[in-house]
C-alpha cells in the first residue's frame, strides 16, 4: 500500500483487573464464539461474544501481537475496537511478519 494512507483503527484490550494493550492496528483476529473472526477498519458496529483463544493484533507497520484471552466480548463501533475479557495476557513481544 505504498503511497496510500493506510486505514487503521483504535484497539483497546482490557482485562477485568487491568488494561492489557491499546494502540492502533490495521487488522485484528478474534476467537468469536462461532469461529475465528477478522476485523478490519470500518467494520460495521458489532458486539460479539468471544471464547477462550488468541487475539492477534497487526499494527500499522506490520508488528504482530498475540494475546491469550479467556471468555469475554468485543465491541466495535466508530472505528474503535474494545476487547473486554476476564483474563488476558500478552503471549509474545511484537514480531515483524
Amino acid at each position, binding site marked *: 500500500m505504498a503511497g496510500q494512507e493506510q486505514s487503521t483503527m483504535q484497539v483497546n484490550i*482490557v482485562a477485568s*483487573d487491568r*488494561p492489557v494493550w491499546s494502540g492502533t492496528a490495521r487488522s485484528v483476529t478474534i476467537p468469536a464464539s462461532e469461529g475465528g473472526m477478522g476485523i478490519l477498519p470500518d467494520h460495521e458496529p458489532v458486539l*460479539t461474544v468471544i471464547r477462550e483463544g488468541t487475539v492477534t493484533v497487526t499494527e500499522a507497520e506490520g508488528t504482530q501481537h498475540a494475546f491469550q484471552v479467556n471468555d*469475554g*466480548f468485543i*465491541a466495535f*463501533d*466508530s472505528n474503535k475496537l474494545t476487547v*473486554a475479557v476476564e483474563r488476558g495476557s500478552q503471549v509474545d513481544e511484537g514480531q515483524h511478519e
Partner: protein
Amino acid sequence: MGSQLAFKSRIASTASLEKIFNAQEMIASSHISRARKVALDAKPYTDAIFDAVQSLVAHTHITHPIVEKKEDNDRVAVLALTADRGMAGAYTSSIIRETESLLAGLDKSGKQPELYVYGRRGVSYYKYRNRDIAGTWEGNSDQPGVEVAEEISKALLDAYMKPAAKGGVAELYIVFTEFENMVVQKVRVLRMLPVELVHAPKTIHIDSKPITPEEHDKTAPLYAFEPGVDEVLDTILPKYIQSRIHECLLTSAASETASRQNAMHTATDNARNLIDDLTRKLNASRQASITQELTEIIGSADALNKEEE
C-alpha cells in the same frame, strides 16, 4: 503522686504502642495509593461492559431474568462487605449497623432476608451471635482481586437464578462503603438484582414504542449482535453483575484503608498526648520527691544545730 518507676514504665509502653500505631498509619497510607491504582486498572473493563450494556438497552427489548422482577418470591439476599482486620475505626461496625437496619426493614415488609457476609470481622460478628448466614467469604478485603468478585457474583447469581421453590432469591442488596475521599466514606445500600438498566442521557426509553432504525441512527451505532442478542445478553449481563460487585469491593477496600489510616492517625496523636501528660507527671513526682528529701535534710540539720547550741 504515683511512683516514678510506674510512670516510667507507662511511658515506655505508650511509646511502643505509639510506634505501632504510627507504623500502621504509614502502612495504610502506602496501601491507599495501591488501592487507587487497582481501582483505576479495573476501570476500562467496567466502562467497556457498561457501554456494551448501554448499547444493548438502547437497541433491544431486553427480556432476561436478570432484569425482571420476580413477584412470587419473598426471599431476598443481602451482602455485607466488611473488613478482614480491625484497627479501622468504625468501618465494620457502621456496615453492621446499616445491615441490621436493612434486615429489620426487609423483615417488616414481609420479606425473608438471607445474609451473605464478606470479611472476617463481619463473619465472626454474626457467627458469635449464632445468626444464620447463607454464605461467607474471607481474605483480602483490603485488596480484593477479580477472583473474589468472581466467586461472590457466581454464588449470588446462582442463588438468584434458582427458582423460588428451590430457595432462590428475588432480589440482591449490597451494603458497602463508598469511598468519597480520604476523610469521607459513606455506607451505602445498593439494590444490585434485578438490574435496573439506567439509560445514558439522550437515549430512548426502553418502555417507549418499538425503536425504528431511523431512531437508532440518531442515538448510537446500530450494532450487529453475534451470535444473537440472547447469547450476547447471557454472556454480558453476568459479567456486568460481576464487574459491579468488583467495583463495590474496590471502593470498600479503599474506604477500609482510608478509615484505618484515619483511626491510626488519631491513635498516634492520642498516644503522643498521653506520653506528654505522663512525662509531665513524672517530672512533677520527681520534683516532689527531691523537695521532700531537701526538706528532710534541712529539717534534720536544723535540729542538730539546735542541739549543739
